[in-house]
């Protein structure tokens, strides 16, 4: 399918999601991935989303904090501009890429991406909140400058980090960042990660001027009145995504490094068996999948909510295997039958989570 059509479909989905009351739309950043995710300029896409919507929050899920791909000053500038254009709706996710396809394409050293990520998440909030920033670091150096514009949200947009490998949720918590899960995990594993996250974030040293203590997970969603139709339409989408995801050339496979402990996005339960098991075994469907009729989805989401997940980011399509008509129909049904089961328990005024304030005794950066 032509990329123009894919982008047009995605924008239509965002406009509808905004009208229906969904809370977030997230855009990834990937480069050179032929079969999977032609979203290499998310700041452009999200700006279009912001211009065409009114209330839905627009999320970088996430900006790659690798200097060969994105200079931190340009990240801060673009994000602030997007926050202004969106009227203060930006959610700022950070990441460091995990495929050799991308890192190798930019000539980036996998050994350094964790360091550059940690540097970027400390310096970018300073660029947003200080009139004069000077920096001498591992990844870059800058003399005193005022990075402009400043974001609309005060003190700055909520910050997140994508969580794939076990342990990254602790990196998030230690820094006061939201945990943006981008790999499917089991209920038990997510509960463990969420519990550890909330335990650690209580004593965090925040990198920004505000702590974001939310946990989001990734899931798939196809909602249909008939469970069997939902399975028939939705499960191929999951299988397509999982297969294309598995075909990526992961950094650890190509470039021996301590910096990437996981071979791909395989769920925790499958990671240990990735190399030495039955190759015919399709990647197991993640627990708590958002595929089914409305009652099933309500039950699934309630289970995730019960273990502390604050939000679920749903993948709606992969390889365009679900027709646009079906995607939009699924969104409408979900909005009419599922969202009210959760939204009715909150006040309309606080429908979208706002960043929490800085803990007492912590000075802003």
């Amino acid at each position, binding site marked *: 399918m032509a990329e123009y059509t894919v982008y047009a479909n995605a924008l239509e989905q965002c406009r509808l999601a905004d009208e229906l009351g969904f809370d977030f739309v997230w855009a990834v950043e990937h480069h050179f991935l032929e079969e999977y995710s032609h979203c290499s300029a998310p700041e452009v896409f999200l700006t279009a989303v912001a211009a065409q919507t009114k209330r839905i929050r627009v999320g970088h899920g996430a900006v790659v904090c690798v200097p060969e791909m994105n200079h931190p000053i340009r990240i801060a500038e673009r994000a602030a501009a997007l926050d202004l254009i969106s009227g203060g709706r930006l959610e700022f996710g950070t990441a460091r890429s995990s495929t*050799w396809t991308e890192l190798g394409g930019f000539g980036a050293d996998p050994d350094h991406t964790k360091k550059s990520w940690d540097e970027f998440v400390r310096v970018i909030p300073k660029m947003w909140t200080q009139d004069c920033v000077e920096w001498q670091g591992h990844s870059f150096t800058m003399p005193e400058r005022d990075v402009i514009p400043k974001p609309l949200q005060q003190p700055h947009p909520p910050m997140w980090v994508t969580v794939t490998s076990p342990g990254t949720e602790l990196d998030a918590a230690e820094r006061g960042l939201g945990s943006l899960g981008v790999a499917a995990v089991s209920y038990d594993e997510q509960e463990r990660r969420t519990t550890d996250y909330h335990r650690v974030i209580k004593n965090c040293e925040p990198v920004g001027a505000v702590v974001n203590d939310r946990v989001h997970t990734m899931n798939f969603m196809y909602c249909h009145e008939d469970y069997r139709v939902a399975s028939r339409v939705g499960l191929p989408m999951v299988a397509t995504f999982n297969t294309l995801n*598995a*075909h*990526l050339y992961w950094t650890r*496979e190509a*470039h*021996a490094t301590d910096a990437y402990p996981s071979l791909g996005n395989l769920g925790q339960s499958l990671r240990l068996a990735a190399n030495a098991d039955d190759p015919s075994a*399709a990647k197991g469907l993640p627990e708590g999948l958002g595929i089914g009729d409305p009652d099933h989805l309500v039950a699934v989401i309630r289970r995730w909510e019960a273990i502390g997940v604050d939000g679920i980011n749903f993948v709606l399509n992969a390889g365009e295997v679900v027709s646009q008509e079906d995607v939009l129909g699924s969104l409408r049904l979900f909005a009419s039958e599922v969202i009210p089961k959760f939204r009715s328990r909150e006040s309309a005024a606080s429908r979208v989570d706002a960043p929490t304030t800085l803990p007492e005794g912590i000075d802003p950066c």
Partner: protein
Amino acid sequence: MLTGTADLSSLVARLAPPTIPAWDHEPVELRGVDCLQLVAELRRPAREVTLPRGLHPTEPPALIIQAWKVDESVWGPFSICFTRLSCRSGVRARGFTTACVSDNDVAGDQLATRWGFPNREGGVRLRTHYDACELEVTVDGRPILTIAGIDPQALSTGSLQYTASLNLAETPNGLRLVQVEAAHDAERVQRVGGRITSFDAASWGDNRLEPYHVVATTLARDRTVRLAPIRFACLPEISAFEGTEVIETNRGNHE
């Protein structure tokens, strides 16, 4: 979805797959193994045309060159070098073996008839030093591969993860891709600055193979490398989801 496009009969003619006359049930342990692995990106034209239809290429396509210098084995000491194409079998990361050379005809014959390595006899010299390493592979006295690695830097032993091999072989089940699972117990892993100083593509399975951009080179010292009996065999022209056969007699025979 990208898949291999190689014509199977052409592949067979080029790779000369060995025959595995019977499924073996015994593992083999190799002791004191220096293992050199160099991963290099291949030019794009080689991506799909070098793989059978049951496998999927990675993007970018990559050649994995591995050499083992084995101090002790039931076949005596030996050295072996084999090349593999990075690929996927279903959702699993694998390497499709295109060629193999060993300097011990007994070891080579066993690796061919029990694990499907497309072995040829030749010279394999892997030399390691504190500051460098070199690999030279010859067939009929002619160099077909030379690699130089310099400035070893220590890594943790957990940083290195090898993918299983898929070897095209005639088996009791017919022509199959047999999955070779080698468990490496590393006591030391180093990254070295590697470069390929000569490479005869035709000798390594396909004259379209052009490894032009080295990704990473590692040198490991393994206490043991354990070759498990074959547990899975895949039809080469069908997706692994449908075309994988379990070798029942070896189902639980792992580790």
